[in-house]
């Protein structure tokens, strides 16, 4: 078992076109670090020195991680992480 991470179209150039990849780690930050070893550059597109980038939304099992623990949010095998760019509604 691992953590499934769904990748938005705009970042699939870093995953060889894959819509979803798998990774491991105890926190979101560790998970992104793990993904970056196989998909170099991915972490930098998601995170800057202040944390998650402004227009990047990350959901753990459909809940926005900004309301959980940000990059320190705990993750575990079997979880599903979805990355999406922030877009307008209404």
């Amino acid at each position, binding site marked *: 078992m691992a953590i499934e991470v769904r990748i*938005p*179209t*705009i*970042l699939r150039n870093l995953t060889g076109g894959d819509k979803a990849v798998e990774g491991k780690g105890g926190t979101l930050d560790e998970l992104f670090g793990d993904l970056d070893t196989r998909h170099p550059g991915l972490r930098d*597109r998601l995170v800057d020195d202040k944390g998650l*980038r*402004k*227009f*990047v*939304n990350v*959901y753990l099992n*459909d*809940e*926005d991680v*900004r*309301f*959980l623990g940000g990059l320190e949010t705990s993750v575990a095998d079997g979880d599903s992480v*979805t990355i*999406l*760019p*922030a*877009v*307008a*509604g*209404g």
Partner: protein
Amino acid sequence: MRFDSLLDSLGRTPLVGLPRLSPSADVRLWAKLEDRNPTGSVKDRPAFYMISKAEKEGLLTPGCTILEPTSGNTGISLAMVAKLRGYRMICVMPENTSAERRQLLEMWGAEIVSSPAAGGSNEAVRVAKGLAAQNPDWVMLYQYGNEANALAHYETTGPELLDDLPTLTHFVAGLGTTGTLMGVGRYLREQRPDVKIVAAEPRYGELVYGLRNIDEGFIPELYDDSVLTTRFSVGSKDALRRTRELLEQEGIFAGISTGGALHAALGMAAKAVKAGERADIAFVVADGGWKYLSTGAYGGTLEEAEAALEGQLWA
């Protein structure tokens, strides 16, 4: 109830209990029926407030042209008010919205400028900003950044909810412009500091997220995440399933975004049951299902309906 005119009848919508979908007598769900507004959606409230504010400030005078980027409901509400007040209305709308929305806009006299499907409402905002720059005499009310949008809910929707349900513990609504959640959320937090404010954000098909660059993302100027307790992303399949459950179990014929809000509301209800806590959870029925009949949302299997919605803006 008697009113002097249609606009005077705005608001004071029913709050109805959901005896079948509520998990227990201690954990109850309540639907705020915003489809019972003059044009059939919650957007009548901000539209009326935004136009009234612009009139008071002298920005709008008879014969003026109003411009607005909108995926539908706000445009329909603005078009109705504009027609009654004598303004020309131009809507910039993504081309991947339902046929009914276009027909309704045209019926109330709005002109429609289509923006590309890829990028969804982001593109509509971009196109509208371009048109506004080329036509400085047009008035863009700009629902994403106009304080009157949230104020409408702070002054009307929020107080109505507490009047009808003083024991309210949770408020759940769809997240688009964020006006409903910001306005109602601020009001409720002042009155009930422990209230939980929960956003249900629609998760569309990939086309809608087809930005060229992640830095082209968009966050409404009205958005303040400190008002929210949490925020869920609800995919079209869950939204459709809940929309159908609401119809089957409670007889309420709602639009698809309402299914998204119900999905988050049921999630909060399950948490309350698990924790052994009492809960009165109110959620917003943003509009009725009429405008979505052509999308196939209510017929066939869930999988067929989901496939038909792929790439459509359903909230």
